[in-house]
């Protein structure tokens, strides 16, 4: 995990001229993401076939046709939403135990990235649903509604973090919410099996390998590329959270020093007057 923050400054001197959250690790990751996105684009739009199977009647074909190409974004985004928000919950639990800024920063980073990915999941799902199901949104669909609740819960987590409070109190409240929100993750993930009569969603196609060849390869490639992107985002966002904590701490120290100086001024002035009095009254 040391790649998140890099080496200790005691072990190698800092380069003060650089002012960003990047490093060699993130540059390598970023290059991997760019190459992966190009490969994913080629597989998704050129090499992989549309979803089309012979229909029940002779001469007809059924399937998602080209709309299946949206799955190469939607499914990876959904999977990494679970991972990011699950990591947020785990980091929140460790924070409540260890009370370390490191774990709080990790939880914050993962929650924000999870919310962005959840938004991507919801939007691509809606766009996919319109041509396939004939509707943008279905309030009776348990998977859609629970995913929306998950999104709102962690959007609430981010809102809670933005409420002005002492850093420790804010981190503790956020950790409790981050940990509690994790209850929703298995509910969203298993909802299509637990309430199979109340969803338009199909069962998981990945677990039962009901897809094959290039479609499966492209889906797995999408999951891998999205994973690299999430890792890149987590490292940068973690460092940003670290900077925010450092800047807040520095600002607090400066404000305290200023307040102490203000409080000391009348005493010093009073002492000066006393000193002058003593001097004038000396032998």
């Amino acid at each position, binding site marked *: 995990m040391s790649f998140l*923050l*890099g*080496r*200790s*400054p005691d*072990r*190698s*001197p*800092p*380069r*003060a001229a*650089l*002012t*960003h*959250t*990047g*490093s*060699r*690790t993130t540059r390598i990751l970023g290059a991997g993401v760019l190459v992966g996105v190009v490969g994913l684009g080629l597989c998704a739009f050129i090499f992989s076939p*549309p979803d089309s199977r012979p229909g029940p009647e002779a001469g007809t074909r059924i399937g998602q*046709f*080209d*709309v299946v*190409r*949206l799955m190469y*974004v*939607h499914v990876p*985004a959904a999977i990494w939403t679970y991972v990011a928000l699950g990591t947020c919950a785990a980091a929140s639990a460790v924070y409540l135990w260890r009370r370390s800024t490191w774990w709080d920063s990790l939880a914050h980073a993962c929650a924000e*990235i999870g919310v*962005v990915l959840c*938004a*991507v999941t919801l*939007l*691509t799902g809606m*766009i*996919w649903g*319109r*041509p396939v199901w004939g509707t943008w949104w279905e309030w009776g669909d348990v998977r859609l509604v629970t995913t929306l609740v998950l999104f709102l819960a962690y959007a609430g987590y981010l809102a809670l973090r933005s409420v002005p409070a002492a850093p420790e109190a804010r981190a503790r409240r956020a950790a409790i919410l981050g940990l509690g929100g994790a209850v929703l993750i298995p509910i969203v993930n298993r909802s299509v099996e637990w309430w199979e009569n109340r969803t338009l969603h199909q069962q998981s196609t990945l677990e039962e390998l009901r897809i094959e060849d290039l479609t499966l390869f492209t889906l797995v490639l999408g999951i891998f590329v999205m994973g690299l*992107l999430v890792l*890149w*985002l987590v490292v*940068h*966002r973690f*460092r*940003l959270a670290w*900077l*925010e904590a*450092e*800047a807040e701490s*520095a600002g607090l120290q400066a404000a305290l020093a200023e307040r102490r100086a203000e409080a000391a001024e009348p005493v010093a002035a009073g002492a000066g007057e006393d000193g002058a009095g003593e001097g004038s009254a000396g032998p």
Partner: protein
Amino acid sequence: MTHAGYIAAGWSISAALLAGYAVMILLRGRRLSGKVPARRRRWMTAED
């Protein structure tokens, strides 16, 4: 290609959201880095 508009919209919105978020993180990091002493930014090392 069938449903090209939906596919283009889905990919474009996803790319815009993720790229926009990545750029926002980088810009906020640059802005905040100037306010924090270099010694407190451990990833700013000669070897990293």
